[in-house]
């Protein structure tokens, strides 16, 4: 049996065509009815108006409106004051508006959106500088220019620099942020606050980005050492700016070393002993316990307190020691290790 609408042969049990629901017919009628069904091809839908047409219409309307506004302003200023004076301000606003409303739309197919937006931001900055010059150059427009330049760089660099790795882009942006802050500080009369910010950026870069640039096998060890140096430098700078250099060797450096040296030792020992992740975490907990006790000890010595240790460091250290003991037991017990491995997908 065949379906007269679809032309397919139907399995013996099919009383109706499963494709169209038509009742099964005798095969002799198929050819005649199939030919009736053919020739009913659908007409393609008419093409819609093109984007270019809409764009051109928009550009023409905006251009006409702005041109008419400019013309009216010029005529009024000339007829009332006999020359161009106050109308220069609204005219420059309209010129900026012209550029920002027409340029991105008209050249959207030719330039990357980032370039279009950057051009508009650049035009706005130039406009602000022009206003600043007209009102007797108060240098405030330069701050706007720096901010606009940095904002454009921050947006355009990741989108345009396709060949650059993400880590390089972040490094360049961090360096530019530091320079931008220095420039701002100089513009408002150098007060030194940009040094804090710049050193903070360097410190964050050392923490987050440096390991990505280092050789994988020793990255943790080297980055811990560099982090320690960066922290020490940052602390020294903060104390120096505040006129308290003497506290650096008595308090800041010992605290920094108390936190960092156990971490460096953990890295070295776990690498040498070839510990798994549980062994490394166990050593890290042990380091945290030692660090908390040492930090508390140095603070108390500096404050000349009666007790060497306070309650907080003892509680912290005991918790860390408990975790370290559990993790060390896990490192040594195959059964617990396997259970945790599958639950944590290690």
């Amino acid at each position, binding site marked *: 049996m065949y*379906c007269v*609408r*679809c*032309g*397919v*042969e*139907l*399995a013996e*049990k*099919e009383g109706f*065509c*499963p*494709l*169209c629901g038509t009742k099964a017919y005798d095969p002799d009628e198929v050819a005649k009815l199939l030919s009736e069904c*053919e020739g009913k091809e*659908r007409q*393609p*839908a008419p*093409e819609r108006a093109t984007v270019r047409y809409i764009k051109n219409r928009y550009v023409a309307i905006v251009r006409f409106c702005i041109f008419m506004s400019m013309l009216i302003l010029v005529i009024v200023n000339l007829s009332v004051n006999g020359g161009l004076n106050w109308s220069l301000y609204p005219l420059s606003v309209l010129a900026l508006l012209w550029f920002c409303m027409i340029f991105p739309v008209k050249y959207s197919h030719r330039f990357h959106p980032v370039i279009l937006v950057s051009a508009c931001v650049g035009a706005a900055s130039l406009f602000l500088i022009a206003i600043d010059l007209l009102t007797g150059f108060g240098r405030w427009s330069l701050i706007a220019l720096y901010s606009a330049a940095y904002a454009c760089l921050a947006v355009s660099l990741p989108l345009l620099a396709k060949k650059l790795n993400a880590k390089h882009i972040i490094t360049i942006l961090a360096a530019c942020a530091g320079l931008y802050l220095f420039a701002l500080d100089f513009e408002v009369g150098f007060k030194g606050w940009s040094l804090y910010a710049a050193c903070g950026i360097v410190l964050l870069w050392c923490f987050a980005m440096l390991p990505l640039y280092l050789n994988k096998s020793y990255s943790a060890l080297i980055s811990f050492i560099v982090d320690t140096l960066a922290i020490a430098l940052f602390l020294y700078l903060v104390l120096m700016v505040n006129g308290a250099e003497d506290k650096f060797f008595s308090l800041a450096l010992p605290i920094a070393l108390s936190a960092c040296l156990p971490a460096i030792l953990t890295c070295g020992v776990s690498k040498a002993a070839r510990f798994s992740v549980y062994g490394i975490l166990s050593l890290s907990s042990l380091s945290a316990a030692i660090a908390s006790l040492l930090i508390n000890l140095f603070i108390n010595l500096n404050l000349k307190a009666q007790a060497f240790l306070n309650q907080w460091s003892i509680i912290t250290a005991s918790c860390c020691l408990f975790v370290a003991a559990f993790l060390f037991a896990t490192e040594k017990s195959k059964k617990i290790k*396997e259970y945790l491995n*599958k*639950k*944590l*997908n290690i």
Partner: protein
Amino acid sequence: MDKANRTWMRLDNMANLFPAIERFSAAPIYRVQAELDRKVESQILKEALDMCLKRFPYFKVRLKKGLFWAYLESNRKPAVVWPDGPYPCAGMDYRANNHYLFRLRCRENAVALEALHALTDGGGSMVFLKTLVAQYLRLCGEKIEPDKGLGVWDIDEEPDEEEFADSFLKYYNKDIKSLGIKSPAYHFRGTRHRQDVASVICGQMSGRQVAETARNYGLSVTEYLVAVYVRALLNVQGRTKNRRPVRVSVPVNLRNFFPSKSMRNFTNFILCEADPRLGSYRFEDIAAQVHHTMRRGLIKNNLIKSFSGNVNSEKNFLVRALPLGLKTVILSLIYHFKGENQYSGSLSNLGVVKLPPDMERFVESFSCYLAPNTVNPTNCGAVCYKDKLVVSFTRTVRESHIEREFFSFLVKQGVKVKVKSGS
């Protein structure tokens, strides 16, 4: 998993996605079915299954949840053989199925293996089914020699370590980033059946006849079927407003391109597209477009590119650090926008199935079915055995417009098609 004293194993790169997107009404299930020359006895089939599972320990597993990822754990409970129901690829009741990720069903003379994609792909399922059927026939008294080249494995052999491996990790390129999102594709909308039900329409035709017709257009059989499917979807969409691109997802068995013994997922997809907004297409245009898309997609480097992004995403520290619950939500969103939303339907062609000569006479036909997903209510599977090409459409809607366009076009092309409803 006795081979390496494993009690658990990680999900492979592709399988990581499937537990996140699984719904009872639209589970990512794959069904391969063999029809024998005799009535299938479920008791003997159960015996054969237990024997086969010793050779395929990576299928004797259950899905468990870890803190960061789901994983597969060795399953000590016995596997179950189910009587086949009217609807293939229905959602799995894990508790009733003793937590197995596959379901073996039998009906009259048919044996069907329905496997969750988290377990394996079509290639792996087919090897398991062939070996199982061979063992069943042996238990029925037939003498069948194993032939690993033809997918009938020796069940007394020890499993190879490489069969457990995730081959994506072996061949991916760590410099390739995740691929971008394409615009949403056309999705057929129809009147939904009640939940967990997928109805089936199968078309049987001569493989040789289809191959000859395909050759007239300079296409392979898969390319030809994909082109017909794209045309069917274009024609069905032609009746609606707001037209969108039609894309058909074509799974590619990567074992044919990269040496791999893995029995886990090792498949990727090529999207064949036709955009009706650019104007109407003749079939020759669609055929040329599909042909070139497939040829380009099957270049080894492009295949590496297509799956490397997924592997790199899995290896990303931030992704790994997310807890499983959060990961499930994010993965289901990613799958929606980067997966099912980007294509209008899938066509999986398992190709020509061959069996050892002493087994061939006992098996009459093979067929394969893909479960429809929540966005695309129709999917298509094809397999050819002894010159009988079976193209099966599964759908979760009442309307069968796509199937009708597909099969009636084949008839117009001079291919004799025999259609039946149900598996």
